[in-house]
């Protein structure tokens, strides 16, 4: 009797590797791994052989050699004697600059268009639909090139601003000049700058003093801006104290004191004081010789790339914002009204937190897309990281493999960091269900 309950001992057969689900997954994985390793080995082997035939090695030493080319748009000190690594840094900063500018403008455009797209006003609604569909269905590259062509071909030349009856005039109280060489806007300088130039900048810059009738250009250094931004950040952080106080009063008495003017004061006053102490002055661009000097020169390449990226991404963000607002069910608004919340509070305490949960993840992936799309800078000659590290540096040193690898890694790390941040955020705000 006992023999019948015994499970017959199975011997392992080779066919079990395919037909037995216990072993099959293992078989598949081993085969996949073998194929993968084989393919990688093949690729690497080919690369090594090809490098040998070409007489090249795999070496990142070129990053420390002098670059020998100029970059017209730069945020940090750079000359043609600087290294290729420095040039790559300039490119990375330029990529980040246009990405930040683009994300900011795209968000503004997208939120406005998305909200207006939900408007009951037929005209506004359809106008926004035309904007969204028009930009979503036409390649970004076309917009970049079009804006660049419009800027360079149909804007006035700097000399048109000359004379008693100029053909073109500057905007906003003679402070902004739109020319075919770019846009000139005022900049903020600091008379008591704490940069390397120090307080002696007037004597160090005789050419500027000679041109004195327009006022000498006040310098500005990174340190000045770091101080101003630091004070601003600290004030914003400090303003949270006021909000917490208001929360405490509301908990105790049920009445929430008005906070906005105190907050505004906490944020604005110290920043203004610091700027006054540094002697902030506005330096306006003016025509000298054949071109405008002073102020900030925004090149056409930057303007075209920035506007096109913002308008294009803004159209996508508009759809995201619209979908996010529509995703909050009407019952939520009604429930908030039933609780007696005023419309403003309904929006800020009930609708927005829920809509943002839907909006933020795709919004961040749009930011990511914008950053990656900024590599289209090649179309207008904006010196982003692809143009410096992945363009001129590769052409000059012949290090395609290393250059493209670094370029790819830069974008990859950027994307992975942003996705990681997004995942943390998602986990923080996601609905806590069962």
């Amino acid at each position, binding site marked *: 009797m006992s023999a019948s309950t015994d499970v017959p001992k199975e011997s392992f057969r080779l066919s079990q590797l395919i037909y037995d689900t216990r072993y099959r997954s293992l078989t598949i*994985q081993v085969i*996949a791994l073998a194929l993968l390793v084989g393919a990688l080995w093949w690729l690497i082997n080919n690369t090594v052989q090809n490098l040998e035939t070409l007489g090249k090695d795999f070496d990142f030493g070129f990053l420390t050699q002098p670059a020998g080319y100029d970059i017209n748009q730069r945020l940090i000190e750079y000359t043609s004697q600087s290294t290729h690594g420095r040039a790559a840094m300039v490119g990375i900063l330029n990529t980040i600059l246009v990405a930040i500018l683009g994300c900011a403008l795209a968000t503004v455009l997208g939120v406005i268009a998305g909200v207006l797209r939900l408007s*009951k006003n*037929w005209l506004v609604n359809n106008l926004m639909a035309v904007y969204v569909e028009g930009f979503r269905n*036409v390649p970004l590259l076309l917009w970049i090139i079009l804006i660049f062509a419009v800027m360079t*071909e149909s804007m006035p030349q700097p000399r048109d601003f000359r004379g008693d009856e100029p053909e073109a005039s500057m905007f906003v109280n003679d402070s902004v000049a739109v020319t075919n060489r770019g846009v000139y806007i005022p900049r903020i300088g600091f008379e008591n700058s704490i940069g390397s130039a120090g307080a002696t900048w007037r004597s160090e810059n005789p050419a500027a003093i000679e041109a004195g009738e327009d006022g000498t250009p006040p310098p500005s250094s990174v340190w000045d801006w770091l101080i101003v931004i630091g004070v601003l950040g600290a004030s914003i952080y400090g303003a949270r104290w006021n909000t917490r106080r208001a929360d405490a009063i509301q908990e105790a008495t049920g009445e929430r004191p008005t906070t906005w003017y105190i907050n505004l004061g906490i944020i604005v006053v110290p920043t203004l004081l610091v700027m006054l102490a540094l002697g902030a002055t506005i330096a306006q661009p003016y025509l000298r010789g054949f071109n405008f000097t002073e102020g900030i020169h925004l090149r056409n390449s930057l303007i075209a790339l920035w506007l096109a990226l913002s308008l294009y991404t803004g159209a996508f963000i508009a759809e995201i914002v619209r979908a996010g607002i529509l995703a909050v069910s009407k019952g939520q608004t009604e429930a908030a009204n039933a609780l007696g919340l005023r419309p403003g509070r309904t929006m800020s305490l009930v609708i927005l937190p829920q809509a943002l949960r839907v909006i933020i993840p795709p919004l961040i992936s749009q930011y990511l897309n914008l950053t990656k799309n900024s590599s289209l800078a090649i179309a207008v000659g904006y010196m982003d990281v692809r143009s410096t590290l992945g363009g001129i540096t*590769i052409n000059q040193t012949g290090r395609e493999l290393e250059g*493209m690898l670094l370029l790819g890694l830069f974008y990859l790390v950027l994307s992975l960091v942003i996705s990681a941040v997004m995942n943390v955020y998602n986990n923080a705000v996601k609905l806590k269900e069962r």
Partner: protein
Amino acid sequence: MSETHAETTRFVRTEMLAEQEPPITEKGIVKWIRENLFSGWLNVILTVLSLFVIYWVLAALVPWLANSVWTTGSLAECREVLAEKGLNSHGGACFSVITERWPQLIFGFYPPELYWRPIVAFVIFLLGIAPVLFQSMPRQALWGSLAAPFLVYWMIWGGSLWGPIITAAGFGVGALAFVFIGKAAGNILGTISAILLPILFWLFLTGPIVAGLSGAIPLEITKVESNDIGGFMLALIIGISGIILSLPLGILLALGRQSHLFIINKVSVAFIEVIRGVPLIVWLFTASLLLNYFLPPGTNFDLMLRVIIMVTLFASAYIAEVVRGGLAALPKGQYEAADALGLDYAKSMRLIILPQALKISIPGIVNTFIGLFKDTTLVVFIGLLDPIGLSNAIRATTEWNGIYWELFIFIGLMFFIFCYSMSRYSIFLEKKLQREHR
């Protein structure tokens, strides 16, 4: 109550009043305007602003279009014609650039005497894609859809017809192997042989067979090099090949990412993240600059083919993410139900999971396709002459130096038509597949 009420009431109307016209402000167009355009002070401001914007655009656009010139050979001639009409150089559009460069914008540098071939290829493509897109077409036509890619290839690139036919026969070998070996030795061996046999067939048998058959019956038409293909034809070839090839690859990647097999899962994740993390333009430069490093010494293959492969891989990573969203959105009960029915993995995916997951992902998939089609313009940077590359070339000629609006409007309009019809189709498909009652 009603009786006491009746006693105290002096007058009760017994007949109905005739219906009256609603007040003028509450009917017809006036009501619509009041409700839709002027319902509050904010709306009034917005309406006035919109009207101003529309007027501003139309005031610039309408005279420009109305005075457009269609028949001159250069920008200078066009400006002369405009000057004769008493307009300045920007008073009218010079659409003659489109009429003069039309063949180039559409076909690139394809030999003019062979223009009929891409047109025939396009018709074959439309006939082939129609039964796939619209279920109302007869189902037998799907066999024609299978043949279409090979015919389209032959029509565009020319050469011997035997090449495409024998290549197609390779797929036939695979199908036969799947059916017969699958019956004789089980599904898994069938699948493996269905993958291996065609590859062996293409590697070792295709060349000799094609050579032999072409020697016997030469079905040859003039060969055209990939370099000669440009314009919208190029954009369409790259876009459509990418779209058709990336969908199956993307679905496989999505299944790989959902898989419980550790290695498959990690490889899929790494592939998807690396592809998505780097801009397409960097991948295209990789294809044009670096591919020669990765392949055995001496291999060199068509730049256009490299671009198609890169665009396909790029789009498939995005599609994989979209499909993964669809897979994740399915209730777990569907997976469990499939298991409970005793379906194996392939059957449960094919019959239960994927049809539903793909239905959910349609908008995302079509958006990816639209993105892919728009991204075909990036090939201009690696030296292919797509519409934007041609527009740059045209703007650099002496005849048309200084023209931009006309060209860009034309190109933009063409892209808009293709992309917008794709998004309309996705809405149509979603509506058709809608199963819930709303």
